[in-house]
């Protein structure tokens, strides 16, 4: 295989974009050229990466999961309430992740067993999971867990659950050499997902389903099982994101991650996944997530307001897609011209 092949991939373009971006930001503010600062900056958007990476798998199947932003809050409040109930914080973390998996199972079953548009299903669960997350403290009170404080668990409704142990909170800040734990977790997660996607049967099934679901059925691909697993992974990633945010903000809240939908989907789409299914890579999503995350950090650093950043992010998403579409049209046009030019010889 010729190595120049890699120079023409979308991932390589993203690497170039990332480097150029960091250099430009570095010219404006030299602190950006410090690796430690850069790595530290990732803490601000690690949750986006946790959720976006497995969402790539779902989007490859031509599906979508917009409920992940609610699963974040659900996982967070679960973690907090379990801890308040006296459960060891790491067991609580495991419960929170399990809740994410169950949420994913619910989505996955619904998507796999019916022909209802995944957008509608996860829109429904987006409301449902958010509602459960908001209502859970009060529900536990109703169920007789009144023992915790005079106002009951419902007191945690609005201010969130704080005072989580340092052993947990510290995870979000600890580093190996200069690399933060959460970023290491992102890399491990990306490696696992990438192996799953590109090296296993399951991963191949995802592409086959995304390109031609009917042919997948006719070829004996276990379509339903594969879809369920994809949504389970998405739920798990969202729970990971919610748990991370809990540690990062040192508070468990039902509404964590509510505004993350736009950056999550932007990362996946900018990473090269086609919203219509059949294409996308984990490394593309990771790189796109970093490009977007640093862009945000850089704009903040040079004094751009959060509001304007939101406008920029939206514009980046739309422009990237428009350019991609127009390049496709142009690519085909060129190919056809070439074939016509060769017609005398052909």
């Amino acid at each position, binding site marked *: 295989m010729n190595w120049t092949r890699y120079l023409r991939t979308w991932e390589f373009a993203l690497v170039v974009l990332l480097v150029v971006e960091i250099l430009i930001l570095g010219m404006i503010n030299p602190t950006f050229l410090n690796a430690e600062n850069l790595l530290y900056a990732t803490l601000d958007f690690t949750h986006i990466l946790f959720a976006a990476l497995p969402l790539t798998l779902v989007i490859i199947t031509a599906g979508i999961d917009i409920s992940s932003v609610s699963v974040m809050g659900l996982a967070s409040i679960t973690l907090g309430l379990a801890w308040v109930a006296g459960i060891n914080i790491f067991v609580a973390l495991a419960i929170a992740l399990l809740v994410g998996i169950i949420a994913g199972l619910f989505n996955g079953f619904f998507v796999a067993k019916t022909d209802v548009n995944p957008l509608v299903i996860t829109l429904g669960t987006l409301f449902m999971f958010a509602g459960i997350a908001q209502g859970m403290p009060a529900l536990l009170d109703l169920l007789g867990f009144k023992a915790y404080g005079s106002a009951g668990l419902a007191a945690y409704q609005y201010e969130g659950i704080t005072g989580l142990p340092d052993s947990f909170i510290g995870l979000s800040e600890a580093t190996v050499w200069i690399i933060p734990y959460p970023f290491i977790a992102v890399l491990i997660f990306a490696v696992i997902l990438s*192996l799953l996607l590109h*090296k*296993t*049967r399951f991963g*191949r*099934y995802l*592409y*086959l389903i995304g*390109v*031609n679901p*009917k*042919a*997948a*059925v*006719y*070829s*004996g*691909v*276990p379509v339903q099982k594969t879809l369920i697993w994809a949504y389970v992974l998405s739920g798990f990633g969202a729970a990971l994101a919610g748990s991370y945010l809990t540690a990062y903000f040192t508070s468990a809240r039902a509404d964590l991650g509510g505004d993350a939908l736009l950056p999550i989907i932007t990362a996946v789409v900018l990473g090269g996944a086609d919203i219509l299914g*059949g*294409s996308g890579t984990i490394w593309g999503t990771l790189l796109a997530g970093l490009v977007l995350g640093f862009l945000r950090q850089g704009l903040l650093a040079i004094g751009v307001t959060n509001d304007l950043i939101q406008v920029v992010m939206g514009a980046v998403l739309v422009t990237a897609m428009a350019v991609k579409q127009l390049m496709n049209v142009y690519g*085909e046009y060129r*190919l*056809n011209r*070439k*074939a*016509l030019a060769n*017609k005398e010889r*052909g």
Partner: protein
Amino acid sequence: MRIWENAMKSADSANANKPPGNVMLELRNVWKVFAGVPVLKGINFTLAEGEIHALLGGNGSGKSTTMKIISGAYQLDDGEIRLYGKPVKLDSPKVAHDAGIYMVPQEPHVFPHLSVLENLGIGLDFSPAELRTRVEPLLESLGFHADLEEEAAFLSIAQQQLLEIVRGLLRNARVLIFDEPTSALTFRETEQLFERMRRLAAQGIGLIFISHRLGEVMEIADRVSVLRDGVMVLDEPVGNITPHDLVRAMLPESSDNVTGEEKRERLEPGEVVLEVENLHSEAFSDASFKLRAGEVLGLAGLVGSGRTELSEAIVGIDKHAHGLVKIGGTALNNRSPSICQQHGLVYVPEDRHAHGIFLDLPSVYTITAGILDRLGKWFLSSEAERSIGERFVDAMNIKLTSIWQIAGTLSGGNQQKVVLAKALAGEPRVVILDEPTRGIDASARQDVYRLIRELTRQGVAILLISSELEEVVDLSDRVLVMYRGRLTEELTGDDINLERVTEASFGLTAEVPA
């Protein structure tokens, strides 16, 4: 070839002494390229007033593309179209309609949730009342009976086709294109359609008739053209040619036997590997048969007779069918394609693009789609995948630059071979082939026939479903004929000939169920 000779006679009488009218439509040196692959390579074509001009060719030959260019759905890449001698640019179907060109497509464009009346009038500027007054006589003359207020989703295929014809007539079309209009029609419906076509021609309308049925072409057309691989290889008045000329024009190698080989001697049939007993669904009933190792069982019948539905029921794609299916002696009640595959039965579907191939992915991904569990326990070995892929590419003579070439950029014949490779990769004992040669060129066809023979030599049992009756006759050891959802006849030995199979397919020999 009796049907052709009959057709010849009627063609002679129908076309006798008919002077050609003025040339209304002319295509000059037209090119069309898709994704870098030329589909039309400089074709010429003319249509005169009152003429019925047939266009023949396999599905990959470019005839549908030609018609889409004439009807404005596609734009040509080079060359020109002239209407009454003047160059025109048909930028969109709307422009073509305004120029008096309308295509009755093979797959009618139906809006399932709009009413029949709205379906008829869509894109036209009539008020509902005006539309109704215009539509009703047309419906009457075409014998189209349907509730105009009902949702169009309930129309049958034949009614949908009539709907398209009415749309063309409402637009006062001067050029009407019929894209394989008879493929889903019965004998009588076909006759009625031909009668209507003759009447339209008598009014000076030019008709382009696309078909792959030679008998029909000889019967209805004044002039016939043949496209092969994007090149016009024949263009003659019908009186000047014989059906054999047409066959020769379509096949590069001239051969009277479709499969190019003498009938092979029968092998001793092996054990029963597929047993179907009393299988029924809403599309067919009481299907029972046995298939033995090393046997080719042909399943003949018209489009819509229930053949495809039967095979989909056997492999468990249609879950609503009831009855007994035994594969290799094991009764399987809850079937799915993957369960059937595990028991050694694979199905190669009729619609290659919709159900067979993964167009946007490397070709090898399609080949290995059913056997990924053999490419390693945990991780897929790209080495193993490559060796399997290359083995099939060699064995089946698939033409591609590398096994990683995107399947969508292969020619139709090679795509079909890739789909066949996928089915065979699992080393099945029973293969159901549904229209395995539809729309592929002659040499790919020969490869498919060779493959079928090779498989039976290895003891694989084959259920061959095909509308090409010659193919069924030449390849099968035994032939079942399906007519209106029933297996009406079983032919063996010398009874397997074109006449018997044709008659049975049209229900002429079997008793017709009430």
